[in-house]
Every structure is written in C-alpha cells, then in structure tokens.
C-alpha cells in the first residue's frame, strides 16, 4: 500500500451503500478512489445528493464505508479523531460553554494544561477577530461569528486535516466573503506547514475562490478533478480571468447548467 507521507487522505474504492425501504441498495458513493496531498486546499463540488457530504463524513470517521479503505496520514480511519477537525454545516458550537471554552474544548480533551490552552485559544480567537467576545455565551453571537468560533476551535486543536461540510451555506454574501479571508489566512499561517483542507460546497464560485484543486461529484462518483492555479487572494476580478471562466464553465457543464443548456430543472 502506498502510504507516502505527503499523502493526507487516501481513498481506495470507497463505497457507501444504503438500504432503501423496498430492499434495493442505493450507493451514495461508488468506488471512489482518490488521494489528497498534505497542504492541499481541496473543494468538493456537486449537486445535493451527489455523495459529497457522505465522502466528507467518511473522512471524518463519522460514517463508515460499506467497502473500500480510507487512510488518513497513512492510518486506516476507524472513527473520528483529533487528527481530522470538522466544521459542520449546522451550528456545532456548544451553547452551554463560553466562546473561549468552546475553542479550548479539543485541547482540554487531550489534557493540555489550562494556562497553555487558554493562550492557544486566545491566539486563534484573535486570528478570527473574536478576542473581545471570548467570555460571551454563544447565543450572544451572530451566525457568522459562530462559524468563526468553530473555525478557531478546529485550528486551535491542531488537526492536520480539516474537513468542512458546506460550512458557510447559511451565511449572507458579505459575511461569507469575510469568512473566506479568515479561513485562508489561518490556513496560510507561516509558523507551520499548511494543513490539508477538504471543503464541501455546492457553490461553484466559492470553490473557485478557495481551492487549489476542485473535485466535481455527481451520482456518487468523482467525475472531474480540476486544478486551480490562480494566485490568492482571489476577488471578483480574479473570477473573471480566462482560466477561471473556463473552469467555471466546465463545472457548470458537469452540473447540467452549462452554456447553451439554460437552467436545467433539478
């Protein structure tokens, strides 16, 4: 088995089937084989029901493949673990803990001394621009701020692999753009090697703004694997560059709403 250290995630023929009521087996994922290198920022794009969230959950260890193997940093995934941090679509920040206790949570789980984890948590809270609400209850924060807390928490926990499942789907346009910058600047920390990010989204522009590499999924299959070489930070202007327009058109074709086809019905 190829477990070269540069490979963060290695999926070999991963399938996930579900029993339907009538007894038929539906494959949410069919024979997905792919590798994701350490430090890569990968976006998975596809329509709802394409299996992108299932793939992410399998990487997180929250869902198990019915066949095939998945290695994270060379080790088989048997369940969730602190080596793979997850930012969920729903609000996952614990409402019964203060903001800073939420950010410290993972560190506390691993027995990091209180003073040290407070220091780390404050550092990441400052990075996401929330140092002044460290002691607040989560209910006092907006949806965008809660996402920042969740991001600070996974970064503080030091996971090498970050899995984000349509994290910003519920945010408004402006908030979403601001949080993209926050996420990219954290990912680009100079002090340490870049973390691997797998980011699931249904938003083609979001993928083009963030990713080094875009995987397009449909019907449980990875149907395209695109490289995005445009330099960061990318703004509206960059999205209209020729290379980006070509990539976008190609993705829209895959999604069934490409040029000349009009908007296909879901």
């Amino acid at each position: 088995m190829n477990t070269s250290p540069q490979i963060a995630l290695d999926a070999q023929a991963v399938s996930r089937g579900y029993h339907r009521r009538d007894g038929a087996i539906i494959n949410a994922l069919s024979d997905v084989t792919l590798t994701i290198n350490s430090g890569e920022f990968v976006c998975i794009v596809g329509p709802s029901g394409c299996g992108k969230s299932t793939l992410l959950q399998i990487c997180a260890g929250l869902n198990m493949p019915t066949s095939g193997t998945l290695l994270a940093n060379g080790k088989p995934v048997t369940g969730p673990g602190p080596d793979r941090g997850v930012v969920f679509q729903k609000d996952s920040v614990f409402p019964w803990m203060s903001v800073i206790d939420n950010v410290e949570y993972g560190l506390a789980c691993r027995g990091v001394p209180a003073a040290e984890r407070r220091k780390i948590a404050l550092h990441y809270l400052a990075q996401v621009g929330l140092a002044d609400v460290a002691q607040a209850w989560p209910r006092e924060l907006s949806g965008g701020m809660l996402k920042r807390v969740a991001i600070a928490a996974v970064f503080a926990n030091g996971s090498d692999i970050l899995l984000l499942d349509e994290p910003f789907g519920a945010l408004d346009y402006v908030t979403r753009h601001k949080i993209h910058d926050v996420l990219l600047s954290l990912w680009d920390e100079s002090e340490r090697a870049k973390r691997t990010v797998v980011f699931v989204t249904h938003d083609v522009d979001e993928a083009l703004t963030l990713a080094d590499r875009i995987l397009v999924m449909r019907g449980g299959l990875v149907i395209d694997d695109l490289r995005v070489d445009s330099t960061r930070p990318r703004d509206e202007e960059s999205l209209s560059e020729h290379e980006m327009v070509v990539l976008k058109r190609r993705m829209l074709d895959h999604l069934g709403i490409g040029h000349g086809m009009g908007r296909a019905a879901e």
Partner: protein
Amino acid sequence: MTIASLTRDRLIGLGVLALLVLGWQLLSVAFPQEIVPGVPMVPGWEKVFTTTFVSISRYWPGGWGFGSVATGEQPGYFYALLAIIYHSSFTFLRLLVGLLIGSALGISLGLAVSWSAWGRRLVNLPMQFLRVLPLLALLPLFQVWFGLSFLGEVIFVGYGVGVIFFAATINAVSNVPDVYVENSRTFGASQWRTYRTVILPAILPELHSAVLLALGAAWSAVLGSEFLGAQSGLGYILVYSQAYGFLDRMFFIALLVVLFASGSFLIVNRLLGHATRWAR
C-alpha cells in the same frame, strides 16, 4: 413585557389571592356548622391563626430543653412554633434525601441506558408501564418491603422522583442534536467526556419541566408516606387530626404545605434558571 405591565400582572395576581382569602372568610361565616364541638367545618382566619395555631403545640413531643404539653406545659404560640419546626424538618429531610437519591439514580440510570442503542431498546417498553404506574398505589407495598422507617419513606419518595427523572432523561438524551455529539467526538473526546461535557448540559433545559414535575411528586409522596404510619412530619399531624375531627388543624397544615411547596418550587426554579442561563 414592560416593567409596568409586569407589576400590573403581579398586582392582579395579588388581588385574586386577596379575594380568595376574603371568600374563605365569607364561607366560614355562611357555614358555621361544627364537625366536632368547637371545630367548624370551614374554619375562619380568626380561628386558624389563634386557637388552631396554638393547638398545634400539642404535637411538640418535648426536647431541646423544653417540656411538652403532655408533661404539663401550657399550650401556646411558642410551643406551636416548636412543633411546626420539629415536624416540618422531618418532612423536609425525607423530601430532600428522597429527591437527591431519586434524581441522582434516575438521571444516572437514564444516562446509562442511553449509552447504547441496545440499552434504549431494552428499557423502552417496560418504561411505558413504569411511568403510568400510580405512585400512591404502590405505597402499601413499599411499607411491607421497607417497613415504617425513615429508609422506607425515603426510598418511596426516591422511587417516585426517580421514575420521572429516568423517563425524562432518556427522552432528553435522544433529543440532543447529533451535531453536538459528533462535534465532541471529532475533537477527540472520549464517550465519557462527551457525556459529561455535552449530553449532561444539553439535556438540562429539557429536564427543567421534569424537575418541577418530580418536585410535585415528591411532595405528594412524602405526605403519602407520612399518612401511613410515620410518627412525625406534617403528614402525621394531618392524619392524626383527621382521626379526631380537627378539621381546622388539617386546614392549617395544608396551608403550611402549600407555603413550603411554593417556596421549594421557587428555589428550584431559581437554581435551574441559573444552571441553564446560557440557553435564555
């Protein structure tokens, strides 16, 4: 809600209460019949707070350096107060210990069952029966099993409270959003830590109503257990008075229970409100 409307609501509430008090007095005037000589069917306030109050001093058994009415002391407000303190503290002790044991056992058993899907499957159906079993109907059974002891009374209260907490905990745990548990697990938390830091706080707001329900059940259970054979407590005074037709004393004790129960509800509500202040 504005401050002004809050105080107005409170004033209206107090007004209704005052009307009830007045209505009772009118009833006592309208129905002066006596159940036994000197004891009216509807004791008016002028009687409740004088002769009735004083007569409670007969339940003071003596002690703490003070004699009792039985050993020749004159009945009076002071001895009545001693009697109230003495018997109330027994009732409170049974209530408190029963509540603590019942809630601790009920919640921890509920959590233990929720630990695995199999635990839930196993207890789900029996739970439905246990929940609808009338508590007071079990009282004679408990007395045969555990005797007329403090232990028996406490176990009875604990059982009544425990069943409520057990059912409520299982239900509340199944309502905790998956995303919190998944979040905790992906941070590397053990199942034990997830229970302690996620499940337990997450179920608290939903347990709030169960706690108030259990408190009500605890009050009925503790008085019920005192009706049958206890030699102390407010419930003991109630049955003892009933046997001799002292309706006014029964009314007085009932008032006392209402007062204590309301106070206990107020305190528990405050404590819970503080514990779940993050949810408001």
